């Protein structure tokens, strides 16, 4: 009888308990979720082990209260505390990570400062080396200028000496040709072989003429840079053609004599002018004799003989 009376009550209690077991607590579920996430985070396990342990303890209390079917408000309270403990653990991880980042950033900054100082020192050294190189380069440049200036000095002295030598040689040549009655003209030294040195109306040189030409050849051998131009002239007696031919042949005769004396053909030019370019009047015998002549022009050392 007693048993029967209590049976419905027991059933009701069981039903109530079963109903309770079926309704989960959302706060607790939330706390469990965040704790599980923290627990599987290796950073939390490593950096906030203490805080994670406290969170676990708090969650255990909440679970305990829930499994003992304590009031929802009580379970909620404990779940809230557990959830906040998990948040503290996670915040602690962030703090530790930031501290490590700060430590490594500090080390990095020190390293860069050292690099900066090293770079400054290197730059100073490079600057010094560059200045040294610039100084050396300008020294070399100055030395080079000095050398150039000395060379140009020497060159100018050499040209001066050369000019002096040339002038000396010219004077010497003039002296040597004096006995041939050489005259100094704008075209060069001019030696005149008079009519008397040729056979009358012929191109054959007389022995006196030959001696003069031989003397000229000797001098020319001493001055290999000089060449000669042989110009033949006649007076106006006789035909122009005859006179032209005679002047040609007389000039050629002198050339032949020079060639025979060993002067190179390339150094001798000839031209016959016939009756042109008289030096005196053809009206008198004296004048005509002066006009019958061969002129030998000796060139300078470098410049060719200007033509008439």
């Amino acid at each position, binding site marked *: 009888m007693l048993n029967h009376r209590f049976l419905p009550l027991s059933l009701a209690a069981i039903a109530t308990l079963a109903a309770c077991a079926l309704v989960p607590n959302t706060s607790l579920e939330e706390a469990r979720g965040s704790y599980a996430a923290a627990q599987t985070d290796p950073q939390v396990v490593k950096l906030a082990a203490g805080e994670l342990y406290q969170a676990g303890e708090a969650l255990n209390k909440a679970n305990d209260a829930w499994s003992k079917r304590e009031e929802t*408000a009580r379970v909620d*309270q404990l779940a*809230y505390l557990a959830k906040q403990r998990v948040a*503290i653990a996670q*915040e602690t991880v962030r*703090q530790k990570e930031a501290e490590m*980042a700060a430590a490594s950033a500090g080390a990095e*900054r020190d390293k*860069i*400062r050292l690099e900066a100082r090293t770079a400054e020192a290197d730059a100073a050294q490079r600057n010094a080396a560059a200045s040294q190189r610039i100084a050396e380069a300008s020294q070399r440049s100055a030395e080079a200028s000095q050398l150039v200036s000395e060379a140009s000095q020497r060159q100018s002295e050499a040209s001066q000496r050369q000019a002096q030598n040339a002038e000396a040689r010219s004077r010497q040549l003039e002296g040597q040709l004096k006995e041939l009655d050489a005259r100094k003209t704008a075209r060069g030294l001019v030696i005149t072989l008079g009519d008397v040195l040729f056979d009358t109306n012929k191109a054959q040189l007389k022995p006196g003429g030959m001696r003069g030409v031989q003397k000229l050849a000797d001098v020319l051998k001493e001055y290999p840079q000089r060449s000669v131009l042989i110009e033949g002239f006649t007076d106006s007696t006789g035909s122009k053609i005859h006179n032209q031919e005679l002047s040609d042949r007389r000039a050629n005769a002198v050339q032949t004599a020079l060639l025979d004396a060993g002067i190179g053909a390339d150094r001798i030019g000839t031209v016959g002018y016939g009756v042109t370019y008289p030096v005196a009047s053809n009206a008198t015998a004296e004048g005509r004799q002066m006009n019958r002549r061969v002129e030998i022009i000796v060139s300078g050392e470098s410049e060719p003989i200007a033509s008439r």
Partner: protein
Amino acid sequence: MKNVSKYPWCRALSGIGFAAAVMAGCASVPAPTEQVAVAKAAVANAAGAGGPEFASVEMRTAQEKLDGANQAMAAQDYERALWLADQAQVDAQLAVARAHSARAQQTANALQEDSRVLREELNRKNR
């Protein structure tokens, strides 16, 4: 007979017992003076650790809950006082943790910025 006469007494006794248990349940919550003091200290600590600056939300809820706990103490609602004091304490601790983490992050950022500026300067000089 004996059983029948005994039963109502028993029921009355159990009724009284239940009531006593309920009364005891209420009366068994002593004034959570210690927990409120701990919560107060935790909130003060958080306020000093930069909580208002770096964790204003947690800081405000902690302060509100501490105020609530004090009011509940005054109203002799000790269960509520305990409940709010515990929450205020953990909220204040979270505020401290957030402040510490934010401070550390600031330091790290500043150092990283220093490094970046230095590096930039160095690169500019080397160019």
